[in-house]
């Protein structure tokens, strides 16, 4: 049973104290199984992005417990958390956040450099294959700043997948894309979960996007109101 759970949150609370105390997240508890395609929705200010960054291990200022692939994140150093992010979590952001100094394929390979499990050649091959899957292999050697928005987002997805993570987290991945590109991205995600058995957790306020996912977690005022 345990092996099936990709991510588990146990009564996560978070408050901001400045300027006055605001409870952003209240008693968030849920599980996400491997291969699930879930979206977190909620109004602006409902705490959905805050939750995503806690789940991503980047934000450690909260109470409660978080398990990723059965491993608790409690009491881990920054370095250990970074290693967890590197190996088990892939990210896609609203703004594409490629490193403009590198070519598309180097951007994809970066997390792999850090993981350091494959040789340079193998990594390059994998990266190229991923770009091929996403239909942007022709852009492999183009510098990142020369790509269009939709192209960048696909390269970013490839980067999120290079280390074969168990969960991919996305923060408004289509927020900055037109309808056509948004559909492309959605279909890529769908294929990832169906054929590659990836777990996807997408924060979005795009209801039409969310409705198409298999599971919707709705947040309101810091509480989960439906799972």
């Amino acid at each position, binding site marked *: 049973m345990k092996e099936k759970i990709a991510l588990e949150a146990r009564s996560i609370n978070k408050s901001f104290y400045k300027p006055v105390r605001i409870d952003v997240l209240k008693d968030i508890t849920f599980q996400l199984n491997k291969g699930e395609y879930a979206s977190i929705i909620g109004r602006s200010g409902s705490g959905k*992005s805050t939750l995503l960054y806690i789940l991503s291990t*980047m934000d450690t200022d909260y109470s409660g417990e978080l398990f990723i692939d059965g491993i608790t994140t409690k009491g881990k150093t920054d*370095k250990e958390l*970074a290693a967890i*992010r590197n*190996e088990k979590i892939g*990210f896609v952001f609203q703004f594409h*956040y490629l490193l*403009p100094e590198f070519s598309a394929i180097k951007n994809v390979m970066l997390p792999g450099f850090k993981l*350091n499990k494959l040789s340079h050649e193998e990594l390059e091959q994998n990266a190229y294959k991923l770009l091929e899957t996403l239909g942007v292999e022709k852009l492999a050697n183009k510098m990142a700043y020369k790509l269009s928005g939709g192209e960048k987002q696909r390269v970013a997805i490839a980067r999120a997948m290079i280390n074969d993570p168990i969960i991919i987290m996305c923060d408004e991945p289509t927020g900055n894309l037109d309808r056509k590109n948004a559909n492309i991205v959605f279909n890529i995600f769908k294929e990832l979960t169906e054929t590659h058995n990836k777990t996807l957790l997408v924060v979005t306020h795009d209801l039409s996007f969310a409705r198409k996912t298999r599971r919707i977690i709705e947040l309101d005022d810091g509480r989960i109101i439906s799972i």
Partner: protein
Amino acid sequence: MRQKYLIEIANALMLARWKQTLVAAIGVMFSISLFVTLLGFMEGLNKLLDGMVINRTPHIRLYNDIQPSPVQPIDLSKNYKEYYNIVRSIKPANTRKEIYNFQEIISRLRNDNRVEGVASKITAQVFYNFGNIDLNGIINGIEVEKEVKLFAFGDYISAGKFLDLETVSNSIILGQGAADVMKANLGDIISVTTTEGEQFSLKVVGFFQSGMAEIDKVQSYASIKTTRRLLGVKNTYVSDIQIKLEDLDSAPKLALEYEKFFKLNAEDIQTANAQFETGSGVRSIISYAVGITLLIVSGFGIYNILNMLIYEKMDTIAILKATGFAGSDVKKIFIFISMSIGISGAVLGAFLGFLMSLGIDAIPFSAPSLPKVNTYPIDYGIEYYIIAIIFAIAMTFLAGWMPAKKASNVDPVIIIRGK
């Protein structure tokens, strides 16, 4: 394996801002080159100025001082042993300046492995006769070859040949100042009167210029044989033994030892020329201070440029951290950038500094008092280059450390959500 990729990322960041990076490296380069040039020039000058005195001065001089005996007859008396005996206005007895048994002393010193060389010397008070006028003078009787070898006598001969002192009988090398006053030319015969009242004719075979006009007006040199003849003493008479040591700094200690052992007066170079040591020490401190200030200024340059780079590359840092690079990896990247600026600047700077030193070394410089110096003096000591490079590397490390620490502490959530 992984370090290679960190270096690749660092290189990409540097290339993205190659102009600022280059400016920072040039800053380090100039400060290193100026540091090296400044110190080389300053130390060159120091050595030249000190050399004017120190090369010509024996490290230890043994002589018989004319002074009253410290033990007076009353001190030997048993009757007054219990008393304080105070004798005022003691005058020296007629002691002789001659060093007894000097050959034995010299052979003992030659066998001492702390001693590089020994030369004996005598001095004679004379008057140079110039028409009706008598000028005060001192003739130093020297062992010419040893004096040349140990005390760079040859460097201060402005005209003529020093070996003629030995080969031409009754010859003299006149101080330049004295020669100018007497309008003496090479080959002229001048006459001197000794304190005993005897007159001698001496042939001028050269001129001597020490760099200090007062000395050049008085001092002249003759061979030890000639000088003995002037003084009318036997040919074993020696009044000074000059010692050059292997290690200059041990002079005060050895001077005390020889003083006790040979029962002679011994004067070490540090006591004789204390002011020169102080002068060059202060000059060195000033030039080091200026040089290190230059390096620190270039350190602030690196600090600034790295800080700017970090602000510009916040997104990059955030994304690296989000994708699993630890804070320490980010720190390594920025320290690598800083160190590459520092090391490339230091190496190029040392090279440029060497070229600048060569340039200064080629500028003509003629001091009338230094006949053998034609260009500005430069000291090419490797230690200045080593100090400069080590200091530059340490400083760039520090200048990079703070920005790198800042970069490693960037919170990716704030950057990514802040857009």
